[in-house]
């Protein structure tokens, strides 16, 4: 694909090309969008990817499969534990390892904490794009509590490498449980403040309502999943549609919107935080005792020949791993289907004819994390 942008000919000569370049405050990460603008209306948008490509999938072909775990966290640094979860699940499925029950509970609790943390960061950063400078500070304040809880048990704050094939690397203790319960109480008391400051604000509502409307049909064409799809009214969540781990044991709702605009996906993500809190509460109540590692996990994990698939619900949508193995412990091919890649592809259709401010709003509502697009 040629990278140079030729001068626009024919009837588009009165438009000008503005480069929302790889360095821009509101493309979260190194995303380049070539905008053809007519005055202030964006007529054509061309995302240019690849600025953050680090060959993760190729790296997986050279190392034993279970050594790929730290790389999964680098692909989406905000949903690192969930990426870990998907990969651990994949290898356990491939090698036929059964994990103890306590491990499943720990995985669910930490994954849901990670999901809340990702949504809190999205919330703050989205409002920063829209020009409100304080909600990001409040959401980061809440996020720090999660990071402290997870740091105590995993040892890292952002790019976790906590799950292992067959279990987790370190057990959770009483401090974790009390800390998490205190955090649940704290976050629940903060939601009214966010409603007052942000969600009900007339300026925000005017900027988000009726901007970037998606329909289930458009989502099906582009493969959009996650809160964007749920904002159009389709209650499709991997934790309900194809339950993995122990999600079928928990009672939680799937928040949906109706109009599919930016406001709908905004409110879906906001309500998802509350639902994640419910899951964590139920998991903490039912936490069993037991080992944190499966009984027999071979050191050299040979994966039987064949292809394997595992899907989880990442904060941004459906995340799938696809592994093709030729019988050794080094995979033949690992394909990662990341949600932001499909979510990004809708912007030429969604943002056609929008004002520039609306393009920024729409891209923020997509909740893109560029490293997972480029991998």
């Amino acid at each position, binding site marked *: 694909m040629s990278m140079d942008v030729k001068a626009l000919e024919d009837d588009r000569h009165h438009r000008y090309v503005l480069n929302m370049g790889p360095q821009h405050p509101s493309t979260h990460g190194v995303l380049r969008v070539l905008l053809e603008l007519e005055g202030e209306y964006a007529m054509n948008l061309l995302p240019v990817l690849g600025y953050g490509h680090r060959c993760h999938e190729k790296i997986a072909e050279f190392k034993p499969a279970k050594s790929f775990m730290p790389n999964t966290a680098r692909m989406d640094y905000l949903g690192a534990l969930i990426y870990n979860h998907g990969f651990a699940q994949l290898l356990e499925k491939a090698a036929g390892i059964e994990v103890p029950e306590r491990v499943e509970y720990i995985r669910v609790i930490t994954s849901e904490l990670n999901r809340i943390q990702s949504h809190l960061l999205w919330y703050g950063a989205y409002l920063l794009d829209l*020009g409100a400078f304080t909600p990001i500070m409040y959401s980061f304040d809440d996020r720090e509590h999660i990071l402290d809880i997870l740091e105590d048990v995993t040892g890292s704050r952002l790019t976790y490498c906590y799950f292992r094939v067959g279990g987790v690397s370190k057990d959770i203790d009483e401090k974790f449980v009390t800390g998490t319960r205190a955090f649940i109480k704290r976050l629940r008391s903060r939601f009214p403040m966010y409603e007052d400051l942000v969600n009900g604000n007339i*300026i925000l509502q005017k900027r988000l309502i009726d901007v970037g409307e998606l329909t289930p049909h458009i989502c099906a064409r582009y493969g959009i999943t996650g809160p964007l799809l749920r904002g159009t009214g389709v209650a499709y969540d991997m934790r309900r549609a194809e339950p993995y781990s122990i999600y079928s044991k928990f009672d939680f709702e799937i928040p949906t919107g109706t109009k599919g605009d930016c406001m709908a996906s905004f409110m879906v993500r906001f309500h998802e935080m509350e639902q994640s809190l419910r899951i964590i509460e139920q998991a903490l109540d039912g936490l069993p005792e037991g080992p944190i590692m499966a009984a027999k996990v071979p050191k050299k994990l040979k994966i039987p020949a064949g292809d394997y698939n595992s899907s989880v619900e990442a904060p941004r949508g459906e995340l799938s791993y696809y592994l093709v193995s030729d019988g050794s412990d080094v995979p033949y091919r690992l394909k990662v289907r990341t949600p932001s890649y499909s979510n990004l592809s809708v912007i030429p259709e969604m943002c056609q004819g929008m*004002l520039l401010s609306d393009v920024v709003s729409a891209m923020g509502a997509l909740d893109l994390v560029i490293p997972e697009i480029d991998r």
Partner: protein
Amino acid sequence: METFYSILPELIRIVVCAVCGAVIVFGNALVMGYAERKLAGHIMLRPGPMEVGPHGIYQLVIDGLKLMGKQLVVPAKADPLLFRFAPLLAFAPVFVPLLVLPFSEKIQGFDLDIGLLVILALASINLLAILIGGWASNNKYSLFGVFRAVSQNVAYEIPMLLSLLAVVFMTNSFSLKAVVAAQSPVWFIVIQPLAFLIYLVSIVAETNRAPFDLPEAESELTAGFHTEYSGMSFSLFVLAEYANMFIVSSVATVFFLGGSSGIPLPYFEYSGIIWFMLKVYSLMFFLVWIRWTYPRTRFDQLMNFCWKYLIPFALVNLLITVVMVKLL
């Protein structure tokens, strides 16, 4: 020589006023810059500047020195004369409105009969400076900021004028001193609350402050019209912005909050300035407060708000004022 001695008091007055004007502009920038950062910090649950001096008091002084020491980068393809001229054009007209403001009964530069017109006219020159600066930068992002700045400022001058006109109709004079004197029993904010609200919203848009700061929208346009400016040129724009805030807040104080009236202090003809400054800075606190609370409006919503809400209400208010003045 005779004529020189006869005009000497006036000359001294001009010099003193100019010096005081400069002191006010730079002092205001120092105080407001520090206050804004500290307030922004505490609203965001962090302390703001703390390093330079106790609790960061000398922060703005060091910032000024730093900005003066920076290289003035002029982009290669920028218009050489206009690029350098724009910050000066933004900064220069800031001094004149300060000369006509009645800080207290005796402290006023020049009491012109058309004081309000002088202030409004010179406040619009800031827009010209932004236009020249953005255009001369030869940068598409700056141009964007300028499109929006021009429409926004021109549109919001109308409600600003209409709300002030309501007060002018009540006092029959453009002179600021007369407006202050007419508020002896009760301040005009009690009689004209709607005009005050409209004026308050218009000054937020006029000084390009959030939530109407589209011309310099940081997250969309990477600094808008002052993208290409660095060092002293940038700081001149910022100084002009803070001084503009001071001027429009002072006009609000004079027209709606009674100027320097308040609980009498000794030497009240001179010490009334304390009340004046208190009122002005509480209005500026309000401007800082709303900057850090609200997101940015979209551009067409900003214009819609002006045309569909502010101007009708301002016109209705003016009509009612005129009718009431005629009847009473």
